[in-house]
């Protein structure tokens, strides 16, 4: 990321020629683009204010968004970012651009993460304890059965949000991200499963795990 791509450099040319205030205006437009998409009316107004063509504003905004995504993907540091000097940006302009990039980094990181392959996550479970007392093949029996309904979702939601209630308020598309599974077990196997999962959880807290995370530089 230390060096801008030629196309990007060309589209960001307007920034180098304008005052820091103009750079702030263009960065605000780029943030608006992230939140609400392109807005030609706003481009036209800013073009007038900056005394430039609207055709130049839109590619500049898109190049700014590109810069933000590239910087986020490669986790550029402030020191790396100062290399923009070699592309003809002033220190003031670089400082404004760094503020723009660093303020929206988490937002972009979340979006990038959300575009990666989705897997079903554990959200909640409902359960019922049944006693099986007879069946066609065994008339006299008394066996406890635990019925479990697992709620899974590809969306990761805040723990403060009501899991089941939230679904009713969401759009149909979001609703389709959820999936339920009905299964059963018995008390003995339930104890075994809890035991296996507790040992799994302990593994994430070991020194070895911490060392591994360090070694992987994450």
């Amino acid at each position, binding site marked *: 990321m230390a060096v801008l791509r030629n196309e990007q450099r060309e589209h960001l040319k307007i920034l180098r020629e304008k005052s820091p205030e103009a750079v702030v205006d263009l960065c605000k437009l780029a943030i608006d683009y992230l939140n609400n998409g392109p807005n030609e009316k706003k481009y036209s107004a800013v073009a007038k204010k900056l005394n430039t063509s609207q055709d130049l504003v839109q590619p500049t905004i898109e190049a700014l968004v590109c810069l933000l995504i590239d910087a986020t993907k490669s*986790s550029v540091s402030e020191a790396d970012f100062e290399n923009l000097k070699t592309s003809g940006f002033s220190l003031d302009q670089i400082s404004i651009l760094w503020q723009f990039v660093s303020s929206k980094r988490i937002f972009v990181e979340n979006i990038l993460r959300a575009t*990666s392959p989705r897997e079903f996550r554990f959200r909640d*479970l409902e*359960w019922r*304890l049944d006693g099986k007392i007879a069946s066609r093949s065994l008339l006299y029996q008394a066996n406890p059965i635990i019925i479990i309904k697992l709620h899974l979702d590809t969306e990761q939601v805040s723990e403060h949000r009501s899991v089941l209630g939230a679904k009713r308020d969401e759009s149909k598309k979001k609703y389709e991200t959820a999936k339920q599974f*009905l*299964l059963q077990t018995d008390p003995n196997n339930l104890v075994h499963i809890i035991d296996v999962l507790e040992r799994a*959880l302990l593994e994430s807290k070991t020194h070895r795990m911490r060392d591994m995370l360090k070694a992987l530089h*994450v």
Partner: protein
Amino acid sequence: MTLSLSNEVVEGLKGLGVEIGIELSKKLIANAVKLALYSDANIPSNPEIYATNPAFAKQSEYAVVTVLFLATKYGYDSQKLRNLLEQHGLVAAVLEEIVKVYDTNKKDLLINNLKIGHSLPHITDAEWRLTCDVKSSASDKGSGDLTYRISLGRYREKTGERESTVEFVCNPEELQSFIGRLKEIERHCEKISAPK
């Protein structure tokens, strides 16, 4: 509810030790127990049982399997089974042999009958894998987030093969929450089973 045997079953039982010799009848009874408990693939063939009177041997085999299955279904003990068989005038040695194999295999027969019928997928085991987000096409630097990949399933009894019923991912906090919910069920089970 009382257990009643059909004419076909009674005829099959009465012919043991008469139409088919005692020793072969004992082999047939032992084979019938295997038929009741295991799949055909796991039972070695016994051509001698069907060598002399195949049609009757098949009927007797069916009769023994039926008696064992019904006695289990109705929760009979060996004395009750003996009383039932005595009503139909079986050869004494055959009667003793059927009661003996019933007594020996009662637990397995019970478990077998328990598993017959429909039910939700029964999970008996959890597999897990712990992974860490290192890098991806969307980010040069991973978040370092730990993710558990959990598979709940069971082992098939006959083949020992593992069958996964449901798979999902969760972070350590979500796993803690999942365990917490399972422990809640465990506590309720303990409460119910505790003597009052």
